């Protein structure tokens, strides 16, 4: 923590001087019509320094440069989608807001087309990662500016893996199962969320499905494709994986449960974002030392996948001065500004701009490097189909998660596939 704060303040000096230069130009060009104040709404970060950096460094620097005050409004964890929905529905409230997952698609008509500034920002930042388009491009238009990906990786106890003779993290799901059987026997079971959270369940179950060569819906986004022998194999594997390596409780877990179980030393491996390692290092240094992070294992296809969890920034159409909001986002995403913001969060928010591919913050904690490497094969739920409304409904109804969970609880593979198939056919009828 202390390191993060020191690092932040060192960079502040550079940042503010740079901000003044860029902002001065923008400010002069728009001196007449600029609004006095704009609001950016964000889900409060579990890294306090991240929110503080915007409030104490970014916003004052922009105000100094342009005279425009940027209010940073934080929303408690888990309620940003409800707030975004309210703002989009009522057409009042913050001008800019953080989005996640496929929301730029959900709020499409209420979001300003930002294709022009996405191009500018991309050019300045060494180009966008290919999958940023997956999250923000709706009907050929960029509806938000990608900010960072909160990756989901395998989090495991290196000491306990060592004890059973597993020196490096298994490369395939089959090898991980083998290791898990040994670890459960040694009193260190695995714990992967199979309940109704909003991230840690989808975070490993979709990648598992994909790595077995299965998919929910075909590429056309219309044909339900869940009923396949690949899905059956993935389910059979998942059931065995659950029964032989995990705690029964995982079936009822929400997103906090696996963090709690890992940090209280009940489990030896889970799938989570960087928060476990971050909190372990801060509050449980002994566990922190023995925590490793690795990319998801490969399936029978020889491929590995990850969940794409992009945080993006959108501008609502009710914004009185759209250009002012665009100017701010361009300024914010300029490497001179945004680098500092990424830095304070170490590598929790993996940038979508290629110029950060080898940025120093990736090396502050080398255990986070797999997050960077996982970007290339990260996708949104429903992939390879494009994002769509029925897809959102399927995720909200936990169709894929429950398909696996019911199998783990003992239902037959045939039955759970039939259930999911019927549900998906109903959901995708309108597609």
């Amino acid at each position, binding site marked *: 923590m202390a390191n993060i704060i020191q690092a932040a303040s060192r960079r502040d000096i550079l940042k503010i001087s740079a901000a003044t230069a860029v902002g001065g130009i923008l400010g002069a060009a728009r001196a007449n019509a600029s609004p006095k104040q704009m609001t950016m709404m964000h889900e409060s970060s579990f890294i306090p320094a991240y929110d503080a950096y915007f409030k104490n460094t970014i916003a004052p620097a922009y105000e100094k440069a342009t005279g425009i005050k940027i209010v940073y409004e934080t929303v408690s964890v888990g309620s940003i*989608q*409800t707030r975004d*929905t309210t703002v*989009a*529905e009522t057409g009042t409230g913050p001008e800019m807001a953080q989005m996640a997952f496929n929301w730029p698609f*959900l*709020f*499409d*008509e*209420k979001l300003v087309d930002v294709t022009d500034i996405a191009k500018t920002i991309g050019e300045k930042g060494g180009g966008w990662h290919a999958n940023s388009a997956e999250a923000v491009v709706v009907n050929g238009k960029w509806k938000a500016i990608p900010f960072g990906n909160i990756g989901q990786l395998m989090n495991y106890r290196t000491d306990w893996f060592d004890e059973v003779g597993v020196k490096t993290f298994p490369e395939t799901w089959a090898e991980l199962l083998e290791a898990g059987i040994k670890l459960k026997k040694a009193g260190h079971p695995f714990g992967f969320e*199979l*309940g*109704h*959270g*909003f991230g840690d369940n989808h975070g490993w179950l979709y990648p598992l499905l994909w790595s077995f060569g299965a998919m929910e819906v075909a590429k056309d986004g219309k044909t339900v494709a869940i009923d396949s022998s690949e899905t059956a194999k993935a389910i059979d594997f998942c059931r065995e994986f659950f029964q032989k390596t995990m*705690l*029964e*409780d*995982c*079936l*009822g*877990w*929400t997103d906090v*449960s696996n963090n*709690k*179980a890992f940090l*209280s030393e*009940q489990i030896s491996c889970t799938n989570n974002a960087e928060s476990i390692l971050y909190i372990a290092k801060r509050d449980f240094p002994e566990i922190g030392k023995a925590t490793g992070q690795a990319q998801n294992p490969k399936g029978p296809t020889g491929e590995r996948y990850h969940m794409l969890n992009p945080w993006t920034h959108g501008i609502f159409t009710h914004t009185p001065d759209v250009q002012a909001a665009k100017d701010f986002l361009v300024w914010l995403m300029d490497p001179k500004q945004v680098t500092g913001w990424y830095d304070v969060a170490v590598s929790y928010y993996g940038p979508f701009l290629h110029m950060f591919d080898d940025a120093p913050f990736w090396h502050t904690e080398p255990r986070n490097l797999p997050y960077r490497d996982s970007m290339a094969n990260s996708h949104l739920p429903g992939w390879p189909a494009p994002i769509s*409304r029925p897809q*959102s*409904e399927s*995720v*909200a*109804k*936990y169709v894929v998660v*429950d398909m696996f*969970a*019911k199998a783990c*609880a003992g239902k037959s593979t045939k039955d759970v596939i039939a*259930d999911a198939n*019927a*549900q998906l056919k*109903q959901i995708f009828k*309108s597609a």
Partner: protein
Amino acid sequence: MSATFVEQRPTSRLRRWTEREGVFSWLMIGPPTLFLILLVGYPFAYGIWLSLEDRPVAHAGKFVGLANFVADFHDPVFWQVAINTFVYTFFATILKMVGGLALALTMNQDFRFKNAIRALMLLPFIVPTVLSTIAWMWMLDPGFSIVNWFLKYTGIADPGPSWLGNPTLAMMSLIIVNVWRGLPFYAITLLAGLQTISPDLYEAATIDGAGSWARFRFVTLPLLKPVIFIVTMFSVIFTFADFQLVYVLTRGGPANATHLFATYAFDIAMSGGQLGMGASVALAMLPPLALIIIAMSVYMKPHKS
């Protein structure tokens, strides 16, 4: 003097007008009616309208008639949610009714620190649900649960049961937490009802040779019936539409075993962005709830004799 007199005339005419029964009654009834129309009627009507539309979030709606309801009827999860809601409401209400009555009868006795204990009894009801539910979350966590710790310590079971991971236990756990939270409401209301029963009646019954069971059966229960009816009606409505407990503890998992109408509607409308379909699920609560209330009022409403 005369000036005051002239000034008073229109006032008194206005007063006379407002004091006419026809006008006065409307003046009294107007504000609450307006309040109800704005805060209850409008959202309710808007909810009905939404349920008849294909209305994705942030998009204009398209009228689709009953298509959302038809889709709900073909959705197996919808039926599972309906069964869950009935099971949850039935068991939670019965347990609260029996437990609440027992608690009220106990609290109606004379004992030391009676007032302090009555006040303490209300705690589960006063503490914000989300806070107390988080405490329950820890108690239901197999690793931290005091029950599991006890089972492990005494060698009865190791590992202890998974309170929220097993579908049946998860529903049971939610019912227990709901009963814990709702019991004080029952107890305190029934206690108020008990205190209105005249001691003379008990004396008369005792003289007639009634034992404690007979006094309860033929004096307490009939006189308490109107209060039991009201409190059960409220409880059924609150329990049927419960959201917070489920949302904090399981969010409807494992595999929809604890999803209720309110949480399922929220997931579809908010996470899925399908406001119309979400509204249709929420509105599906109305007919069964109305039927329960009507049946209850027929069965339980005391007849004036």
